[in-house]
């Protein structure tokens, strides 16, 4: 996994850990933050995968 996706994943976990200790009325905030980081982690992973595939395609064949 690339480091950026890992970073976003760690941020998602931190936000998720905060859900139970947040007041009931504000609980949607860490949930929304956690989901956003999860989406960013997946997007980052997909971006890196696409770039690698493009790089392989554009590299001169032996």
């Amino acid at each position: 996994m690339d480091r950026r996706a890992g970073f976003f994943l760690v941020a998602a976990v931190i936000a998720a850990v905060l859900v139970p200790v947040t007041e009931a009325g504000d609980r949607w905030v860490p949930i929304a933050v956690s989901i956003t980081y999860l989406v960013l982690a997946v997007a980052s992973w997909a971006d890196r995968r696409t770039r690698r595939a493009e790089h392989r395609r554009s590299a001169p064949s032996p």
Partner: protein
Amino acid sequence: MELAGVIIVIGIALAFDFVNGFHDAANSIATVVSTRVLSPRLAVMWAAFFNFVAFLVFGTVVAATIATGVVDPDVLSIGVVFAGLIGAIGWNLITFYLGLPTSSSHALVGGIAGAAVAKGGFQVLIASGLQKIGVFILLSPLIGLALATVVMIGVMWGVHRHRNVARLNRGFRHAQLVSAAAFSLGHGGNDAQKTMGVILAVLIGSGYLPVGSDVPLWVVLSAHTAIGLGTLSGGWRIVKTMGSKITRLQPVGGVAAESAAAATLFFTSHAGIPVSTTHTITGAIVGVGATRRLSAVRWGVASRVVWAWIVTIPGAWLIATVTYMIVAALS
């Protein structure tokens, strides 16, 4: 005698607010100045104006949280508030000397809590209020970081489709005026209210106002004037850390970081949560850097910020405790 004490503590609270504006001016103007959209002089005037007019936009919910949501209002006395302020100011001066963008808000919460515990023991702490503040200490930079990343991705997607990059850059240089104004508005709204909370606490503690009172208008205006004047005086030591040491910002990154941080501050001010404007913008700047690549973020500087973040509350707490013990011994 007591009135003199109240006036002195209010004076110190306004001085704290002034230093807060001075300390945090860099956060809102670093990118506008570094990209030469405005001269430093005009930039601080721009930020100071929006710091001041924030009282027209935001209520005083954050002030109420500081005054009655951190420690039991019954324990608040002139001595406790004085010691809490000395703890916060002392810690701010230490970190200002070290060039660290620490949070005046956390220092204030740590200072007030430390002094109150020194007077009445740990039972005077209000667990629910401290829990809310503690959760958002962690959440506010995370929200700023996530929003800035999302905004940057949206902008990059737009740029990719637009092609005319020179014209876009010109547009973003001007958009920085709006984003810097929004961030200054959020900063004035959240940070000036902390001083209002301290003044409200001392007025309640000394019996000049009953518990549950609204913040008087003269307190609102004087707090916004003090933070605006502090910003006008400008603190340049931290400009370098915020503007270039964490990650190098371009106009587009400045707009993304400032608008993300401003949105976070608008939300937390509305919800009555005192958060660190410094850590919110730091998180947003890291978010902008992370859209390029993680190595674009200077993690050494970012980790110094995090360490300062962790030790701020205990540091201010300790100074406030010692100050309160001296005050109690002398009186």
